């Protein structure tokens, strides 16, 4: 009987340590939307989580990748379609627009002025803060290829990696919180 108990304790200990290793104090977020409001929400949650000493991993994919473009940089060796995409998509986080009430630019301009009045950080400022907090940004390589974006036209960001879905999945698996925005 005593032996059995010891065995059970050992098994439980092993199980607990496996569970502990499985989830870190980490937040994984898919940032899919290319809308100003949604990316802003994503960045507020991300920086907030960093204030909780959580490790934060953002996976930028599809329309969101355009927000990471640096307006001062250009990608080299693009074909005609890639150039067209580059022209049609917003060039950086200061160019993305509202998901609702954009109203040909009027709504977006209005919300930006209201944000300023209420001292809400702008999107470019949020990216700067995120970088200082050590938040990781992973960019989906497939999305970059689809949109024709090159790594050299992206913003200078301390922890930025181009990767695939496997990176997101392994980060998400280890995270206590997973979000899709």
């Amino acid at each position, binding site marked *: 009987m005593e032996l059995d108990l010891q065995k059970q304790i050992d098994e439980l200990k092993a199980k607990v340590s496996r569970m502990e290793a499985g989830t870190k104090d980490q937040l994984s977020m898919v940032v899919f939307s290319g809308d100003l409001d949604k990316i802003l929400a994503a960045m507020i949650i991300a*920086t907030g989580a*960093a204030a*909780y000493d959580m490790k934060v991993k953002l996976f930028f994919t599809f329309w969101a990748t355009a927000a990471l473009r640096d307006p001062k940089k250009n990608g080299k060796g693009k074909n005609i379609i890639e150039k067209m995409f580059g022209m049609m998509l917003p060039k950086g986080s200061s160019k993305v627009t509202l998901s609702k009430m954009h109203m040909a630019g009027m709504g977006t301009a209005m919300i930006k002025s209201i944000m300023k009045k*209420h*001292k809400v*950080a702008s999107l470019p400022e949020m990216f700067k803060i995120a970088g200082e907090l050590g938040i990781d940004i992973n960019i989906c390589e497939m999305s970059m290829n689809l949109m024709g974006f090159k790594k050299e036209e992206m913003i200078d960001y301390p922890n930025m990696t181009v990767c695939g879905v496997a990176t997101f999945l392994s980060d998400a698996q280890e995270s206590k919180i997973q979000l899709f925005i």
Partner: protein
Amino acid sequence: MTTEELKSLKSNAIVDARGTACPGPLLAAKKGIGEIESGEIMEIYSSDEGTKNDIPKWCQKMSHEFLGIVEEDSYSRLFLKKA
């Protein structure tokens, strides 16, 4: 702690986050807490209503002791002790 007790506290650091919106005060708190020693007292100034709910929750998670709030005319003073 009562308002009088809080007012008589000697803070080791004051973080002025007045005028900033969410997540400004929280980020300011995180930055400030890194600059004081364990057991020291930090005071956060915030004009953002939500901060009064956010900071106690953050303290609980980070194991800092939340001491209380003193209301001023146009802002709040939030007191906490670093774990």
